[in-house]
C-alpha cells in the first residue's frame, strides 16, 4: 500500500493556470474523488501525477518525488485510466491488457512467461477471459472500459488514477466498473484518485471528496460535508436538492429551475 502526497502542485498550460497550489495527502488504500465543474482542474491534477503534463511543486509516492523517476519506474507506481481511452480496434483483448506490463519490460525486450500468466490471471479474476481473443472494435463501450481497467490492474501499480471512468457507461455498467475498482482497492490495497461528474456515485464510492473550482480547492471532506445544496449551487451554478438516505448515502438530484406547468 502506498501513500500519495501533493505539495503546492501548480499546473499551467502556457499562461493559463489550471491548478492553483494544491496540497493534499492521500492515505494508503484511500479513495479520493475530485469533483468540480468542467475546467476546474480535476483532470490536470491526475495528468500531473501520471507525468503527462509538467507541474511545479512536488508529488510524492511513499515520500519519494515522482518527477525524478524514469518513465517506466513511474508507470510501475502509478496506473492511469484516461477519460476517453484510444482503443485500437484490431487489437485483441489479451494483447491490450498485456500492454500494462510495459513498465517491467526492457526497451528491446519482450513479455516473459510471467507477464502472460499474470495477464491471464487478471482476465480470469475480472471475468474477462471471453474477450481475450476478441478484437476491441467488436466490443461494447462497457466491455472496453473493463479491459482498460484490467490493463491498469496488470500494471500492478499501487496508485490508480481514474479520469471520469464512468462517463461513457450506462447506470448498470457504471456501478459494475466502480464496484470493480472498489473490490480491487480492497483486495490489493490500491490508493485511488478519481475525477467524477456523477456526484451521488462519487459520494457512494469515495472515502473523501475534494471540490475544485477554477483550479482551487473550495470544499473538502466526507460526502455529507461537501455535497450541500448551497455549495453546489455556488460552484456548479446548479439548482439541486440533496437527500440523505438512512444508510448514509448522499443523493444529489437536479431540480427544474422553471416552475412545473
Amino acid at each position: 500500500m502506498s501513500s500519495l502526497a501533493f505539495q503546492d502542485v501548480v499546473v499551467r498550460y502556457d499562461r493559463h493556470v489550471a491548478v492553483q497550489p494544491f496540497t493534499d495527502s492521500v492515505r494508503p488504500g484511500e479513495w479520493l474523488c475530485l469533483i468540480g465543474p468542467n475546467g476546474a482542474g480535476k483532470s490536470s491534477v491526475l495528468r500531473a501525477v501520471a507525468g503527462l503534463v509538467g507541474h511545479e511543486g512536488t508529488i510524492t509516492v511513499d515520500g519519494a518525488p515522482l518527477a525524478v523517476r524514469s518513465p517506466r519506474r513511474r508507470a510501475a507506481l502509478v496506473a492511469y485510466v484516461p477519460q476517453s481511452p484510444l482503443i485500437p480496434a484490431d487489437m485483441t483483448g489479451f494483447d491490450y491488457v498485456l500492454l500494462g506490463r510495459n513498465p517491467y519490460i526492457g526497451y528491446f525486450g519482450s513479455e516473459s512467461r510471467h507477464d502472460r500468466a499474470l495477464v491471464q490471471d487478471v482476465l480470469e479474476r475480472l471475468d474477462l477471459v471471453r474477450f481475450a481473443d476478441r478484437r476491441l472494435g467488436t466490443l461494447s463501450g462497457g466491455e472496453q472500459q473493463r479491459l482498460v481497467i484490467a490493463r491498469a490492474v496488470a500494471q500492478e501499480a499501487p496508485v490508480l488514477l481514474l479520469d471520469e471512468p464512468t462517463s461513457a457507461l450506462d447506470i448498470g455498467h457504471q456501478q459494475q466498473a466502480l464496484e470493480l475498482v472498489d473490490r480491487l482497492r480492497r483486495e490489493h490495497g490500491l490508493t485511488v484518485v478519481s475525477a467524477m461528474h456523477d456526484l451521488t456515485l462519487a459520494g457512494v464510492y469515495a472515502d473523501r471528496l475534494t471540490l475544485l473550482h477554477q483550479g482551487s480547492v473550495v470544499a473538502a471532506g466526507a460526502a455529507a460535508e461537501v455535497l450541500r445544496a448551497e455549495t453546489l449551487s455556488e460552484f456548479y451554478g446548479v439548482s439541486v436538492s440533496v437527500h440523505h438516505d438512512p444508510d448514509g448515502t448522499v443523493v444529489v438530484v437536479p431540480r427544474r429551475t422553471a416552475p412545473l406547468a
Partner: protein
Amino acid sequence: MTAHADHRPRHRWWLLAALALLVGAAVLGAMVGPAGSISSTNWHIIWKIRLPRVVLAAIVGSMLSLAGASYQGVFRNPLVDPYLLGSAAGAGLGATLVFAYARSATLHWPVDPLPLAAFVGALVAVLVTYSVGVSFGGNSLTLVLAGVAVAALCTAVQQMVLLRNADVIDEVYSWISGRLSTATWADVRLVTPYVLVSSVILLLHRRQLDVLRVGDEEAASLGAEVKRVRLVVVIAATLGTAAVVSVSGLIGFVGIMVPHVVRLVFSASYRWVLPMSIVVGATFLILADVPGRVLEHGRETPIGVVTAFLGAPMFIVVLRSKRRLT
C-alpha cells in the same frame, strides 16, 4: 492451455508459408525474361542480369514494406507510406538536379552521382521536416504537416528546374516511375548495409510500436518514451528508404499496400506485421517485376506502373474478402 496461446504457432506456420512463396517467386523471377528460360548457354544471363534483379527486387520490396509498416506505426496513420516525410520529393529533387546539371560533367566519374544525390536528397528532406516538425511540438500531426510542406517545396523546385531543362524530362520521369531493369550486383552491394542496419533497428522496435497503438499519452502513461521511439524509427526507416530509392527510383504503392494486406489477412500486431511485411514485400516486388520484362517486346514497363496496376486490384480483392468474413 489458454485461448490466446494457440495462435502463436499458427502465426509461425504462416510465416513459413510466406517464406516458401518467396523462394518460389525468386525461382520464377530467375527463369522468366526475353531470353527464355534456364539452359546452360544463358546461365550467364541469369547470373549477370536476372539474379541481381531478383535480389534487388526482394531488397527494395522488403525495405519499402517494412519502412511503410513502421511509419504507419509511429504515426498511427494507415494512409502513410515511407515517402511521407518528404523522402520521395527530396530524392526526386536530388536526382533531377543531377540529370539537369551534372549528367555530362560526371559522365566519366568512377561512381555514378545519381544514387548519391537521391540518397542525400531524401535524407536532407526528412531532416528538414523533422527539425521543423519538432520545433512546432513534435507530435505526429506537426511532423506530417511539416512533411507536406517540405515535399511541396522540393517538388516546386524540381518543376522549376525541369521547366528550364525540358530535354531531361523523359529521363527524370522514367526515374520517378522506378526501375529494376538496370540492376547489378554493385547495386545490391551498395544498398545491403543500409537495409540491414535499418531492418534490424526497426525489427527491434516492434513491441514499442504495439505500445504506441494506444496513442502518445497512454503510451507515455505506460512508461513508453514516445518521442525517442518515434525519432529512432523514423531515422531508421528513412535511412533504408533513401538507400533503396537511390538505386531503384520511386516505386510507389508497395510501402502502403503490403503492410495492409498483412494486417488484413494475418495479424495487426506489429511484432508480426513487421517480419511478415519483409517477406510479403519481397515476394510481391519480385513477382511485380516479372510481367514488365515480357509485356512489350524491346521496351520495359516501369516497375512502379506494374506495382500499382497489379497491386490496386489485389488490394481491393483483399479488402472485399475481409469484409465478408467479419
